[in-house]
């Protein structure tokens, strides 16, 4: 069984997708009450701090097609990939390529335990679930990917899988909505 990657956008770009730069985010502590509480410890109104996002990486994709994508050196501006996650994703892809889908899912779950907020890992797991004929879990995993997407491209990929998964569950309206969000 061949495992066909659907990261079309990502793959077409032949990306060695290294980490995105840390994203600024809203990290605010809730405002303390003015007087209601007798003596609340002073809490700064707004604390803003850069978020350390999980690193998102990809390897040169091992594709079913024979074409070889030459591994590219990450540009210096991009942080190197986390070797553990890269190793596990590669392992998962090898397992998937030999039809060991359950093992591949297990490897991806190992990777997710290391970088739970890496949207690409959830995306990849969603793909496996699709191939395993489990569209409902594929949809849910892809929704996790949507949640953790730090990049518009990934988010659209995720919605694309949500659309596929909903389609095969017979959820036509839901699929249409997801396709719209995927920009398809």
């Amino acid at each position, binding site marked *: 069984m061949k495992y066909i990657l659907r990261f079309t956008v990502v793959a077409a770009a032949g990306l060695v997708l290294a980490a995105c730069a840390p994203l600024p985010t*809203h990290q*605010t*502590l809730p405002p303390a009450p003015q007087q209601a509480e007798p003596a609340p410890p002073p809490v700064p109104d707004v604390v803003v701090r850069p978020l350390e996002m999980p690193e998102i990486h990809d390897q040169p994709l091992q594709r079913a097609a024979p074409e070889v994508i030459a591994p590219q050196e990450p540009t210096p501006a991009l942080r190197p990939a986390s070797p553990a996650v890269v190793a596990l994703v590669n392992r998962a892809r090898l397992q998937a390529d030999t039809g060991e889908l359950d093992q591949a899912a297990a490897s991806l779950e190992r990777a997710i335990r290391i970088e*739970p907020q890496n949207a690409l890992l959830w995306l990849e797991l969603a793909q496996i679930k699709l191939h395993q004929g489990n569209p409902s879990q594929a949809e*849910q995993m892809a929704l996790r990917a949507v949640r953790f997407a730090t990049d518009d491209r990934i988010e659209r990929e995720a919605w694309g899988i949500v659309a596929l998964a909903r389609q095969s569950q017979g959820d036509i309206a839901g699929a249409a909505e997801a396709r719209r969000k995927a920009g398809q």
Partner: protein
Amino acid sequence: MAPRKQNPRKNSGQKRDKSRRFLRFVVKLFIALILVGGVFLSLWIAKLDRDVQQRFAGALWALPAKVYARALEVYEGAPISAEVLERELQRLGYRQERGAPSPGTWYRQGREYLLHVRSFTHWDGREPSGLYRIRIADGQIERVRDGNNHPVGIFRLDAPTIGSFYPDQPEDRILLRYEEAPPLLIDTLLAVEDRRFFEHHGVVPMAILRAALTNLVSGRTVQGGSTITQQLAKNLFLSPDRSYRRKVTEAIMALIMEYRYSKEMILEAYLNEVYLGQDGARAIHGFGLASEFYFGRPIEELSPDQIALLVGMVKGASYYNPRRNPERATLRRNVVLSVMSEEGLIDPNDLGSLQSRELGVLPRPGKAGGNPAFMQLVRQQLARDYSEDDLRSRGLSIFTTLDPEVQYHLEKAVTSTLPAIEKQRNMEPGTLESAAIIVDIDSGEIQALVGGRNPKFAGFNRALDSRRQIGSLIKPAIYVAALSDPTRYSLITPLLDQEITIEQPGSKPWTPRNYDNQFIGEQPLYLALAQSRNVPAVRVGMDIGLDVVSATLESMGVPAPKPFFPSALLGSQELSLLQVTQMYHTLATEGFWMPLRAIRSVLDVDGQPLQRYSMSVQRTLDPAAVYLTNYALQAAVSFGTARSLNTYIPTSIGVAGKTGTTNNTRDAWFAGFTGNRLGVVWVGRDDNGETGLTGSSGALPVWAAAFAALDNRPRNLDAPQGITWARVDIERNARVPDYCDGHLMPFAHGYVPEAVYDCRKQDEGFRWPFGSNEDNTVSPEPRPQSQPDPIEFFRRLFR
């Protein structure tokens, strides 16, 4: 009956005829008897044959399922300090040896560790043994290299054993395959017990005769003369008495076994059947388990002197017990070592040094089942797919989610905090009880579970079997339901904290009270939750509808009470600690319900995958509404009912939490989560008596003690889709321009307050966005200027 020759008669022919007839009769009788005897004998042998074949047909023994904790993953950036690593190596029975020359050894050189990892069959395949160099700095793995100094992405240690499910006849063994048995063990065993094993046919008549002669001379049974096959027949099928009949049976069975099965199979059976000791009620069978039991290591890692000890013990496991009779055991070991030297199994030059070695057995019998409460949970979850008999007999390997490090810290937190509270409050020592669970948020894996204040005691499991009122822990369910309707509720919606009386059909009107017995008037929603005000929660619950609250509870993964009375809004419902954990887990994941798991996978006795319990996810709540609720729960820790937590956990972690206290302080609860883990703690008394403890004085300290020792990731995830930030004046429930005092707060997308309050134009006061005076100083959705957020921008663009 013996045949007897007839004397020939010399008399008459008649007589001759008679005697001839008689002779013929006797001969016939004789043949018949032989035939009958032969039939009986063959029937008996056939029966023995059947017994043998039956025993060998299936699994030879009932093999208890072995339960493993998670395997430690080692990779760059893993939160593993030197202390954590060394504790893990100790759990696994690795020993420190210069250069880490063989599997199961390690060595430390400064900050660098040399680890010689054992090969181990995980669910998804075998991890080969190998040498790794890892460097640890600042409590984490800084670098991972292999033996040749090449970078390594990730590797796993073997999984620590945490227990077994024993059969009723408590024999235990670790199955040792013939091919996997160390050659030295086999050679030594044969040299000592049965030199001609590979030549004979199960019985050696000369040896039996010699033994019989010796026994006759000495007048008692001193020598066995049994082959390994005979010993196996005796162990597998026969009672231990020493009669001649049994001896014959044993010999016949030995012949049958040799006829039916290969030498290797017989030897493998012997290696696993031989009795080598006793651990309380548990009988230690086979060299595999004996190695773990006496040396805490797999048999492949034993040194020649250790193998000699085990082989020597075959002669009498209790007589030569190395723990109870070390002198005898040493003498016996040295005899075996001499045999090994004579046979050329070891270098004779080493004999002296090997014979002078210590026995090297562990002082205490192996690792005892130290996690009874977690094992109960494992059993519960396995019961859906496996019968009790499967668990006790099929030799399954069960890989669980238990993280021994997290468990260690949680146990320590419970056992150290309860006595401290009792002492501080002059309570009778030993009266408080507790239960606690810690879960990894993103995988839904239960990492630690404590069922009572004595975590090693396998008794009543308060985490699973005890149901307690949840009190204020229900409030987030009410508020998440309310915030799911952004047309009516936001974090700063003013709620009324004022007396309310609720008419209930069929019972007395109900007037809920606050914990402090006061009413404080109007209050924004997030403060009402952070300070756990009862009356506003009841008002909100009544407003949105009891059916909505009930449905929300179900969405969070717990059964709602039926019927749902208004009093349930203050947590009159009774839930187990595990259920409460499931409920809060759905909050911690921002609305994704995942059945909490204690088991990852199951392998059969041959290491083949049987079943995997994969991660399963279901979005059941609106992520934006949960995000807002969690924001208020973070407020509870920042300055609300759980603010004492800030003494223990850095505020930068941004813990979200909720305290709970039930009527007259019978139950103290705390549920809280960081960026990576959720913990729920209950403290109370078994007799359901009053403790005088609140959630924050009773349960929170246990939570804090456990989490202070763990690696906590901050809760700093970017807000989900559907959240917009706005700078607001909370009291006025209005937006403010950036130059005014205000708070940046999250709102459901499209539902930021419409009113605008401009501090520079105080005369005009409120400004309405669609009113006459639009001067564009305030954008419809003000964003903090210091916070450019391109992602959010793109999100909105593509939504």
